[in-house]
């Protein structure tokens, strides 16, 4: 089993892929190492959020993804 990283919106363009599988468990520093430096740079910005297993994390640096979890990287949202 693994953790699936999901790149959304403009982060998908930056990552060059929609999803990526990495070994579980995955924490914040592991996430920063797993993704491209350009994406890691964006993750450092406050306006980019991270969701784990369907929940947006209040503090993304406390990411603890387990086997089978989806880690979604969420750039600034805009509807309407």
């Amino acid at each position, binding site marked *: 089993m693994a953790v699936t990283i*999901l790149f*959304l*919106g*403009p982060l998908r*363009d930056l990552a060059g892929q929609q999803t990526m599988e990495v070994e579980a468990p995955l924490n914040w520093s592991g996430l920063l190492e797993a993704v491209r430096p350009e994406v890691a740079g964006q993750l450092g910005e406050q306006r980019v959020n991270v*969701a784990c297993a*369907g929940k*947006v994390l209040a503090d993304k640096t406390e990411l603890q993804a387990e086997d089978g979890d989806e880690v*979604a990287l*969420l*750039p*600034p*949202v*805009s*509807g*309407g």
Partner: protein
Amino acid sequence: MIRAIVLEEALDPGKELAVLTANAAGAGGLVNFVGLAREEGGRVAELVLEHHPVLTQRSLDEIAGAAVERFAVTAVSVVHRVGSIQPDEPIVFAGAAARHRREAFLAADYLMDMLKTRAVFWKREEGSDGTRWIEPRNEDLSDAARWHGSKKKEITR
């Protein structure tokens, strides 16, 4: 009624208005807003709305639920398109019914401010000059910030 829908096919504002009217439950009136895709003088060929299968629906549920908590409304409806949208096509329907008009106007205004800044969508314009991702404008963020603070029903009549 609380209606919060992520819609993959064409949005019919007339139908949505009829649904809201039919479910207004003793309201004295209702207000609705319909957002359209801009063509920006022919520069934009299509608007593409991307979403997340779980987080997007939840964000709409939360926004609609918060409006019901905050305002004296009898019904709230938020219907938002995803996928490819042509210029001038409807993207969003936001409506609220209330016993008195002020609460309905406020709730609809609130819904749109939250949709612009909190709803989980990523919007890109595809056009003659390539792809452009759209983020909330500063104006959208300051509009949304007006609602910070008390979640209590502010106006009661």
